[in-house]
């Protein structure tokens, strides 16, 4: 139960004290829930970031014989991993709701993930529309920066 849960009938408490919230935080006795959800979140993040990385270094001109359509299968893997992380992330969020929704690094992380997701779409469509190479590479670089920025912000959530 977080610091911001001081009014049992309040919104933050009702979320943190929900069945799911108590399950993930181990207060209902399931001590393996939190490590398990965190583990899923870790594997999902490495997969999403990994695919984002191998795609963007390709766009930046590396291993350029790999056809961009060959990445479609990897994108499916990345979407699956993203879904895992959305789900595991929501469960972790419920567990310590008051802390996260007021945390600067959490907000930065969410903003960077949304930006990174949009940037992936922008990079893919700018390739499809055959935009100038310089433009595509700039967008791709920004895409990588947003996603790796999200890792930084996410890790800093444990400290700030």
């Amino acid at each position, binding site marked *: 139960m977080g610091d911001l849960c001081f009014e049992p009938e309040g919104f933050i408490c009702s979320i943190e004290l929900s069945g799911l919230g108590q399950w993930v935080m181990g207060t209902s006795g399931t001590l393996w829930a*939190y*490590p398990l959800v*965190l*583990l899923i979140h*870790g*594997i999902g*993040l*490495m*997969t999403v*970031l*990994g*695919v*984002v*990385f*191998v795609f963007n*270094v390709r766009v930046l001109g*590396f*291993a*350029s*014989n*790999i*056809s961009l359509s*060959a990445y479609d*299968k*990897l994108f499916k*893997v990345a979407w699956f991993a993203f879904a895992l992380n959305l789900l595991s992330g929501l469960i972790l969020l419920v567990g310590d709701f008051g802390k996260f929704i007021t945390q600067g690094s959490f907000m930065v992380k969410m903003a960077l993930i949304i930006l990174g997701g949009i940037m992936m779409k922008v990079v893919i469509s700018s390739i499809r529309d055959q935009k100038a190479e310089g433009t595509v590479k700039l967008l791709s670089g920004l895409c990588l920066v947003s996603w*790796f920025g999200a*890792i*930084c912000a996410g*890790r*800093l959530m*444990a*400290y700030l």
Partner: protein
Amino acid sequence: MDAFVIWIGSSWLHNWINLSPWAYPAMEIVHFTGLSILFGSLLLIDLRVAGFASFINMRDAMKFIPWAMFGFTLNLLSGTALFSWSPDTFVANVGFQWKMGLIFIAGLNALWFWFGEHTELVKLADGEQAAPAAKVIAIVSLILWLAVISVARFMAFL
């Protein structure tokens, strides 16, 4: 091994990671970044070799090996810095022991891949399936690295 643990526990690295307020989080960020680069590169290579994405040009997939090595090097360096924070704590951690053991096996697997299969694999045409032994190596590699991530994540709880 013991000598290394004792040395690093009183090294400048140990002092830095303990005394600087941002050193530990910064090294963790490098560790996560390096792992993403390593895992993403392996995912591309291993999925190609295992036959799940065989339309990827094999020779080009192999170009991600230097990236995988780069990610691994980042993690070796940042991991050493994190380890120096409190070597005794890590050495005694079951999760850490498993992690090191699994990375060692993954390393042997990578050597087998490089010396046993690499020259044959780069000859594959687009869409052509790799030899069964190479497929086994690729699948074992993915399983091992997922296991490494898993036991590493559990280190914080053991």
